[in-house]
């Protein structure tokens, strides 16, 4: 197992490098030069040129990339001109908020989705199956941002159960209870779509597995049906569910962007959208690289979980 983890970690290095290349190339294609963007359109050509030299922009592209990469590795993500603070500081501040939101939603979607899928498959064509299928269809069809807005209308405006926005109350805020109250609606809204997808795939995976010969073997041994479903079948189905969970984590992280907008959640997603609208390139660049790197890390965890579950992978 240790060997596999190490192998997986090493194989992540080219992926991470690839990510930086892609991000760098995309950003290099942005029309106009950053110096003008920083200094404003009234800057004298001399000033622009001097800043370009300072920023290393007069160097060839590949050299610029290595300068930028070297800085990244030293934790220097540059400075956001719009916020006038180091990009990394801003990202770290914002990322914890996104992590709380997306992490909660991910756990919700994984647990609820797999459970719903298993129940649905075990009771195929039954009432529970039909009900779950209907909810799933609704879930994957509703835009999460619209769902979030409707939740605000109902639970914050009409019923006044939960706060409509933010992460903590402005006064008297802080503490776990306050966080949970603020977290409930956005996390649920974010989880709904992913839950639908996970439930659907889990149902399919379970149905596929339940037709396999080794399920018949388990039954022929006299294993109780409950154990056949929850043990033999679910374990085999997890082999195809876990990669889906890995992909869904990316979708949850993506959906967080909308939810952060709707619920004024102070996360990375909102930061990125603001940065794009303000053309704060370094902040976009740094944010994208940072989040993508975290996602790569998460996928290693997923792969290791998969290898732990399926002994056929490690060979």
């Amino acid at each position: 197992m240790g060997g596999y983890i190490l192998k997986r970690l090493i194989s992540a290095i080219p992926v991470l490098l690839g990510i930086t290349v892609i991000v760098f190339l995309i950003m290099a294609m942005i029309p106009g030069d950053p110096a003008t963007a920083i200094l404003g359109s009234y800057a004298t050509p001399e000033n622009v040129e001097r800043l370009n030299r300072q920023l290393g922009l007069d160097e060839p592209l590949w050299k610029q990339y290595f300068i930028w990469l070297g800085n990244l590795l030293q934790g220097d993500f540059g400075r956001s001109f719009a916020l006038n603070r180091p990009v990394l500081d801003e990202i770290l501040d914002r990322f914890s908020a996104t992590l709380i939101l997306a992490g909660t939603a991910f756990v919700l979607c994984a647990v609820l989705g797999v459970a719903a899928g298993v129940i649905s498959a075990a009771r195929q064509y039954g009432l529970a199956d039909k009900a779950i299928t209907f909810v799933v269809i609704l879930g994957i069809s509703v835009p999460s941002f619209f769902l979030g807005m409707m939740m605000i209308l109902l639970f914050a405006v009409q019923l006044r159960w939960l706060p409509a926005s933010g992460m903590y109350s402005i006064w008297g805020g802080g503490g776990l209870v306050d966080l949970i109250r603020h977290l409930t609606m956005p996390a649920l809204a974010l989880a709904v779509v992913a839950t639908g997808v996970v439930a659907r795939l889990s149902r399919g995976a379970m149905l596929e597995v339940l037709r396999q010969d080794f399920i018949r073997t388990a039954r022929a041994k006299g294993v109780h049906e409950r154990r056949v479903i929850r043990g033999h079948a679910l374990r085999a189905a997890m082999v195809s569910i876990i990669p889906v969970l890995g992909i869904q984590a990316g979708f949850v992280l993506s959906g967080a962007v909308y939810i952060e907008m709707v619920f004024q959640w102070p996360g990375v997603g909102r930061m990125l959208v603001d940065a794009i609208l303000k053309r704060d390139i370094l902040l976009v660049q740094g944010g994208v690289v940072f989040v993508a790197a975290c996602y790569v890390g998460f996928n290693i965890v997923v792969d290791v979980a998969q290898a732990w579950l399926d002994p056929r992978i490690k060979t």
Partner: protein
Amino acid sequence: MSLFLRLLFRNKLAGFGAVVLGLIVVLALLTPILPLHPPNETNTANRFLRPLSDGHLLGTDHLGRDLLSRLMWGTRLSLAVGFAAALVAGLLGATIGVIAGYFGGRTDNVTMRGIDMLMAFPYILLALAIVAVLGPGLFNALVAVAVVNIPFFARNIRGVTVGIAHREFIDAARLAGMGNTRILLTEVVPNIVPVVVIAMSTTIGWMILETAGLSFLGLGSQPPQADLGSMLGEARAALITAPHTSIVPGVMILLIVMSVNLLGDGIRDALDPRLRSGALSRPMAATRVKRAEAPAPKGDGLLRIDALETQFHVGPRIYRAVNRVSLQLDPGECLGLIGESGSGKSVTALSVMGLVASPPGVITGGAIRLNGQDLIGAPYELLRSLRGRKVAYIFQDPLSTLHPLYRIGDQLIEAIRVHEPVSHAEAHRRAIKLLEDVRIPNAAQRARAYPHEMSGGMRQRVGIAMALANDPEIIIADEPTTALDVTVQAQILALLDDLRRSRGLAILFITHDFGVVAQLCDRVAVMYGGRIVEAGPTPKVLAAPAHPYTKRLIACVPELGAGRRALAAIPGLPPAVDDLPPGCAFAPRCEKARDSCRAGEIALDGDARQVRCLFPEVTP
């Protein structure tokens, strides 16, 4: 095509989706000629009019623009962008996938590494980065959404293509002198198209959501032009004071995406042949029983099968897989059940413990008595307690019949502990003993192995050990050596023969090989078309077959040591069990058949030696 539509509309939800989506599309197409307000005509005096206001059916927005008109124009835009994105992503992704999957090797490796790289981004980061480069705008949002989805298509289609590229008909096309381009276009692509259609129809909804999302963030369509997403985005500021401005576009997105998804699922189901035959149904814990009444018990014996009828109900068709089969198995006896594929021998065997997959299997008649107790219709808990304890099974392919993710030791321990409340340590000890009994070397060490780490012969030994775990009285072996090589087959047969003699087991041995029957079985029963046509002591049946089918079957199988020769073939095909002729099922292929053979039911005559024929080859 008409079959496709019929299948599609058989699914009511898909039909509903098609109707709703059709309506929306028609309205969107007609929008320019409908009597609507201009969508961008502002009238600040009439801001935030409620729905059903005079002249504004759905009210107005924050600039006093007519919501109905904006909704219709926005729908047009959203639909167009969603479809376009799906089309672009689908076609580009499929092309990449087909090329990578077909050519394999380095092309595949390099392309897929690139795709993996793109998939290492949470997709919205990539979309945001693309919009950051191109600048906000609806077309740019479309490009971003399409590009972001290409990897998903490419991956999916590549997988399918790899499967097809390794099929034998591709080799055949090469040998027919076709080049790569022609093979790709005429052999591979036609088989990929349904998959691409399925993938697109199930992702269009998603694409519409995504473009709406980018617009919602202000990165898609720019004012005053509005798609549904940007309408929602603009309305968000007034969510509390004028909720209808949000609800109207939101509900429209929901409707579109839901109808697209329902229709997409319908298309997938209609195009996926596995779903068409109902094969994706989950088999129940025990075979369904629909029996009028049990036949009266006659005689004794360890296991008595009386007039068993097992059928498969698939749509309107009824396959009579097992048609009034009667068998008897005495303690310590080995009974061979021989027949070709589709003769019903395996279904007979699986019916004993209710293991026929259901749906579509149904036991419709007869009785199966174990020590006098009828098992058909027995409560599940009783059946379960007998499975593995009194009657154990050995199946054909030991790779697919052992659980791939459990160590074989654990699978044995489970088999023991299901029926006996012994400690884990005790069960483990017994499991090792069982592995030694089936002559697996280094049993203690091998117990920690997974099935894929063993050879076929070793795996089948594990299968046998598992069947022996609870000292059953009967073992039902369903073609246990068919998947094995001949030298391994000999080892397994010898092992089974030893075990049965040393433990006094009764074995019901299913096979299609007369040689195996001859070497292992005391008695043999021959099945054809779901019925037993002949039964008796093995040496007698083989030496002097009474039924013409048995005789000709034995004659057409070459036997080792007889040298080069012409074979006596049987003309025609085995019967389809959903359309059995009246009378003898073999009559259409039998040169001795007369009118009386085709007239009606023919009885299985005889006592120890039975034959179902009006003109037997020998008188038993």
